């Protein structure tokens, strides 16, 4: 390479940067619509990474132009994979967006924590049980560690 910049470095940095930014956005954003957008970014990075895996120096696109002198081509298999992955991606995106529309209609919020809170209290209300409002407890169904016998009364609340 005579160039100042290494194309390998540029391309890999772009792909990995997109994946990282997208996943960081999914983890960190509090607005649900931003989460979908971050997913789109991460998907773009993953697609670029796959196409990079099939790149070959000084090769032509995988379309045959003459039978007599076949030139070196880039690997067509990752390209075919990415072709389907892009179309699946837009289907997933539409599904996520329609879920968001339903969440907006039902809970009138798009904040991640608020929507989870309202969903949680609705589920608790439909079961007829009081909701555990502790901020320390996980929102999922992960069981809490067993309470030692001498601390049962200090924890208060729902201990037997």
């Amino acid at each position: 390479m005579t160039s100042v910049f290494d194309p390998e470095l540029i391309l890999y940095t772009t792909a990995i940067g997109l994946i990282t930014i997208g996943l960081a956005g999914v983890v960190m954003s509090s607005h649900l619509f931003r989460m979908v957008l971050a997913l789109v970014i991460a998907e773009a990075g993953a697609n670029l990474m796959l196409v990079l895996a099939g790149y070959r120096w000084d090769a032509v696109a995988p379309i045959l132009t003459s039978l007599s002198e076949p030139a070196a081509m880039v690997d067509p298999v990752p390209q075919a994979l990415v072709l389907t992955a892009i179309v699946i991606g837009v289907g997933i995106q539409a599904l996520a967006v329609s879920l968001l529309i339903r969440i907006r209609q039902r809970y009138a919020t798009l904040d991640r924590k608020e929507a989870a809170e309202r969903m949680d209290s609705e589920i608790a209300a439909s079961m007829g049980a009081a909701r555990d409002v502790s901020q320390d407890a996980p929102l999922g169904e992960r069981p809490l560690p067993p309470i030692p016998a001498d601390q049962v009364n200090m924890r208060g609340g729902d201990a037997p």
Partner: protein
Amino acid sequence: MGNLTGLLFAGGLGFMLLTLAGGLDFGTPPMLVGSEIQAHAPQQTGAVNIVTSVVLGYRAIDTLGELSILFAAAVSAGLILGRRHTTAGTQTKGGFILYTGGSLLFPLMMTIGFYIIFHGHLTPGGGFQGGVILAAAFFLPLLARPGARLHHKTLSLIEGFAGASFILVGLLAMMEGKAFLQPLLVQDTLGQLISAGTLPLLYLAVGLKVGAELASLLSRLIQTEAPQ
């Protein structure tokens, strides 16, 4: 606190991926199956575009799975959105330019969509790209005329017919004693429009299915009511 954890996670992930990518030999693909396919694809499938011969020949079952994933996504999005029709008055009416452009572009977009689908084995393009353009062609008049509706029954009929014919072509190959979805009728006319056997038929099925699915998805999305 949560943001710090997220940043740490993202940084660690990026570092890990960079380390992994540093070990890769850029520019020299390690997979040998690609060169093998390039050597035999023109004779085995008759397609000049090797990506097409991978999508519809060597990895056709993968494409079938992809179509079913897209079908599942479209159906579940339709189920989630439900059948809430807006009254026509709530949407803003398209202007003159949008109205005329929608009517004017519709035949052109249909033509280019089918062109891209039918030349999928010769040039870049194919069922996925052409299907998206077909969906856009049907969606553009919908934007201009808010009252207009797409006929969902017809769309699902087209979609089901296209999906069934994709599987039917695969079963025909089995009847001939070949593998499921193996290309049939491969002539020796490389580079012609009528070549590559059943691949253009498969791509037509893919294009119609993708187009019908995306068009019904978009029209369902535009018909849901906006919150006030």
